[in-house]
């Protein structure tokens, strides 16, 4: 018999000891079956799926069983290991819900090696474009593909390119927007760091299509590694003749330069980004004129997000029709998300459009930490909104998320459980937006500030019901009267949390309670005397000397002195400290 390996894993992280029971069970069964010599048994941290319960993977057949019970162990050993038969009932039929297209090279090739990129099929799309496609044909292919901007707004990429292509101007520019700034989002960083040449290739194709000979990479300075790798890629491409004059023997010339963002979130907004490259104050300008008509230095310019550009080589190489075969009716292809928050496996995921939020959170993310209940999903970062758990089965695409009051955004996705307070969440995003408002236009600059003040008031226990109306009123005015996307969407987190969780706001305002226990002013700690074993640990650890008492009399928390740090709650071994 061929030597086999059984990988065994308990996907339920709450069950720390159970895995050992199964390990012993399997060992015993294997010994009994006299198979110990032929089979290696391995405990692993993960085997790429996140079903509840214990799972095993049998190599080399690559059979995966999940949700197995102790009573199944004997059968697995007998039937599958010895008999080579598959037990259909235990089979985990699901394969990974991820579809790595944009990320196919990330983690696969050496990002600092042009040879690696080419060996993986890189620059084939460029060759195709330069040898057999007219600019119109590239636009046509883009149109067929249905690719929409991955920066957030979802504007059809072909239209942007076609506008710029149609402009009669000797100078045009291509800009790659790498000023990724949403808190918790790092899709673009990973692409730039993991597969910089794919973005380069996309930009060169863009240059060829619109008739531009100069492109800029606008990358935030906080991404030094991305900058380093992109610069290396530019240098390699230049010396290999993939940038510069007569690229690959065609008559097409194109060069690329990096410009660093100086830390302003608003510079991810295209008109601000242009101002920033021009050396001006990074504030938005009214559109129209759109950059594709009048952009950098007043010339037609296309600005595409990193992920959009990284999609271009794939789309051209495989053809627009193939690209469009993935996704929903109006949203095609895949989308990369930075999945974070209370999810078990946080990280970067790439999924086909149309996958449901539940699949992303549970099948890919492995569910919520400690198997708590999911309360909502936040998408779109500070410009997005929350989607409550009842909509988890919504297929993810631009339209659906918009309908739910959130946005696709650049790809931040945060799982929220019942220990997260939505007033606190709205406050967090507002703080970010107030900090990052460029200050140019009144609704955003002042509206954001006033919203934040009201949220602080509510989470501080001083809210009034009228504040809800004030929040709605300001949010609406900001949406309607702000100049740029940042301001128009800055109130989204407030709007959508009120829309779905008005009750939670009211609990803060009327009952002066924070159900999630997050808002410090609204929580208090109390020693439950029945449970207290009078060990004194809480008093010893209290940094504010707010706990008094003795081994004899027990302990009490002085709410006046208490700074709500929660140390007593955490150190109590008997769950005798109550937070409410």
């Amino acid at each position: 018999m061929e030597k086999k390996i059984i990988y065994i894993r308990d996907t339920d992280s709450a069950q720390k000891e159970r895995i050992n029971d199964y390990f012993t069970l399997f060992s015993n069964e294997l010994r009994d079956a006299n198979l110990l010599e032929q089979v290696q048994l391995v405990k692993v941290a993960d085997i790429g799926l996140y079903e509840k319960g214990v799972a095993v993977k049998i190599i080399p057949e690559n059979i995966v069983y999940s949700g197995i019970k102790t009573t199944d162990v004997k059968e697995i050993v007998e039937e599958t290991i010895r008999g080579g038969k598959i037990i259909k009932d235990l089979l985990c039929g699901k394969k990974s819900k991820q579809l790595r297209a944009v990320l196919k090279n990330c983690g696969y090739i050496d990002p600092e090696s042009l040879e690696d990129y080419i060996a993986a099929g890189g620059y084939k799309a460029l060759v195709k474009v330069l040898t057999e496609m007219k600019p119109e044909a590239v636009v046509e292919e883009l149109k067929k593909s249905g690719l929409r901007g991955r920066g957030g707004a979802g504007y059809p990429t072909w239209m942007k390119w076609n506008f710029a292509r149609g402009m009669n101007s000797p100078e045009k520019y291509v800009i790659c927007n790498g000023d990724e700034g949403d808190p918790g989002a790092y899709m673009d960083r990973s692409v730039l760091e993991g597969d910089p040449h794919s973005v380069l290739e996309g930009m060169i194709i863009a240059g060829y299509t619109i008739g531009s000979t100069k492109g800029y990479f606008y990358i935030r300075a906080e991404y030094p590694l991305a900058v380093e790798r992109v610069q290396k890629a530019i240098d390699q491409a230049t010396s290999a003749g993939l940038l510069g004059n007569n690229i690959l023997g065609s008559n097409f010339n194109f060069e690329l330069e990096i410009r660093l963002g100086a830390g302003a979130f608003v510079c991810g907004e295209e008109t601000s980004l242009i101002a920033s490259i021009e050396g001006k104050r990074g504030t938005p300008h009214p559109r129209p004129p759109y950059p594709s008509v009048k952009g950098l230095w007043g010339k037609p310019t296309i600005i595409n997000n990193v992920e959009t550009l990284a999609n271009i080589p794939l789309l051209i190489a495989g053809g627009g029709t193939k690209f469009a075969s993935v996704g929903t009716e109006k949203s095609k292809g895949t989308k990369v998300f930075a999945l974070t928050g209370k999810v078990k496996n946080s990280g970067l995921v790439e999924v086909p459009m149309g996958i449901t939020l539940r699949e992303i959170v549970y099948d890919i993310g492995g569910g919520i930490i400690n198997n708590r209940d999911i309360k909502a999903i936040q998408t779109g970062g500070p410009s997005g909104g929350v989607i409550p758990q009842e909509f988890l089965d919504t297929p993810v695409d631009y339209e659906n998320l918009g309908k739910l009051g959130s946005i696709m955004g650049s790809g931040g996705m945060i799982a929220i459980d019942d220990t997260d307070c939505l007033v606190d969440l709205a406050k967090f995003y507002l703080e970010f937006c107030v900090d990052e408002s460029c200050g140019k236009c009144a609704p955003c600059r002042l509206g954001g500030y006033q919203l934040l003040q009201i949220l602080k008031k509510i989470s501080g226990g001083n809210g009034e019901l009228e504040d809800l109306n004030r929040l709605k009123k300001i949010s609406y005015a900001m949406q309607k009267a702000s100049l740029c996307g940042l301001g128009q969407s800055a109130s989204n987190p407030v709007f959508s949390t009120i829309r779905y969780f008005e009750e939670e706001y009211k609990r803060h305002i009327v009952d002066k309670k924070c159900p999630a226990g997050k808002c410090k002013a609204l929580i208090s700690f109390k020693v439950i005397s029945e449970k207290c074993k009078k060990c004194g640990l809480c008093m010893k650890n209290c940094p504010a000397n707010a706990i008094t008492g003795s081994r004899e009399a027990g302990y009490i928390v002085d709410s006046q002195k208490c700074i709500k740090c929660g140390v007593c709650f955490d150190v109590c071994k008997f769950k005798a400290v109550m937070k409410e």
Partner: protein
Amino acid sequence: MYKMIEAKINGITVEVKEGTTVMEAAKKVQIKIPTLCKHPDLPPSAACGLCIVKVKGSNKMLRACCTPLEDKMEITTNDPDIVEVRKTVLELIISNHPNDCLKCGRNGNCELQSMAADFGIREDVFGKFLRDIPIDSSTGTVVLEPSKCILCGRCIEVCQNMQDVWALSFLERGLDTRISPAGDIKLSESPCVKCGQCSAHCPTGAIFEKDDTQLVWDALKNQDKYCVIQIAPAVRVAIGEAFGATGKNLTKKLYALFRRMGFKAVFDTNFGADVTIMEEASEFVERFVHKKSELPLITSCCPAWVDFMEKFHSDMINHFSTCKSPHEIVGTLSKTYYAEKAGVDPSKIYMASVMPCTAKKYEITRSDEMFASGYQDIDVAITTRELARMIKQAGIDFMNLPDEEADSLLGDYTGAGVIFGATGGVMEAALRTAYNLVTKKELEDVNFVNTRGLEFIKEAEIDIEGTKVKIAVAHGLSHVEEVLERVRQAKKEGKEVPYHFIEVMACPGGCVGGGGQPYNVTDSLRLKRASAIYQDDKEKTVRCSHNNVYVKKLYKDFLGKPLGEKSHKLCHTEYKARPIYVR
């Protein structure tokens, strides 16, 4: 040929040129869209967010100030929803603005205040969030009070693009955004040329002229002082705006006013302008005919322009007319010539001037030559706006005053003197006299219409007895560079210079559009003010400076001849390169 587009605004069909903004188009059909940042002089900055309108088919609201109307668009500029949003935005702006109206320089003519009145703001709906930013009055001309700023961006657009001075910019971001010279220095250490256009465009009390009216009242109260006053050409055609009269020349009422206020003698800057022309035209002839020094000659009667030149174009110092401004000439003559003739102790004379200009406050102490009489030639310079306030304080029914005349010695002026107030006027006045100096003949037609109007750079060729005089007139400091560059280029290449005579006025429209003039200036208002000036010129029997009887008398009795020793001492000045940034 422009493409025309047709659209509907509030159901009214409007046909406009392609590229016309919704706001402009709406104005054509008598629809007013509120704004606090858009100024007719300036491109939209899209800062305030009040001008939002709805367009059919979109659930967004668009900003009327910067959205071009498109063919077949259906715009709604007003409904309860829009009003609600506007009101909220206004309340937000007010939450960031002190309720200081009673003590504010803009009380009664503040755009924010009247907007608040229009929208019926009765309470502070949102928590007050005020900024504590120090007031900058370092220049002694315009005062910056950033805590009242609503960040409309007009002053910055004016300073950077209209005037090319770049003294003001936005500092910091978000809530901390404020107007300030770059590097957070004082205005007096910045490139500021004191033109005051920022203050004339500010919608609130964030930038205003330094108020010197109390100095004037104090002097008038002081028994020891012999108070005299002069008014600049542009003041007389704009002061009426503070009393509901636009484009009216109120010279004679002003004369009457000043006597009632207690001034012992009333002079006219226009007389000084005639003297300036005598000197400047002579300078021109020296250069043009006698080739005593380089061409072109460049006018120097605008103090903001002088400051700009000394900071940014000091290589042009040799081209500058050394003749003082009319304002300074009247000042120095009042404490010498007039004192002598009237038998007044010059140390007792208190010379006040009313100017359309904030930079004149700077000019009165600009250099040692401004003390040529042995005293500070001008004791105080106030702007048209300050005068309007003084009239109201004095309780005088200004518009119904009887007409009076000025004190002739320094008060009688010609048509050439008054047109100094409009762009091209100095050039025209100088040419009238230069023609006479060269040919010894009088012009049949004194109107040089090529120098008039609001085109930013005007060029003309004047024939003086077969010799072509090439002139250029520029106004608005951003248009100077182009003219000077042509001169520099020609000099560098050893070619003949493109111009023989250049007039520059810092403010668009010249002094009629000065930084100290009444608010809400637009090109149409500038033209109205200018046309009142040209009307005055037209109605004058004497229209050339050299024919001014009192000018002749001045030279005969006192100064001697133009460019002579005495006029050199009293009526000329010097220039020096000044650092753009003072450390």
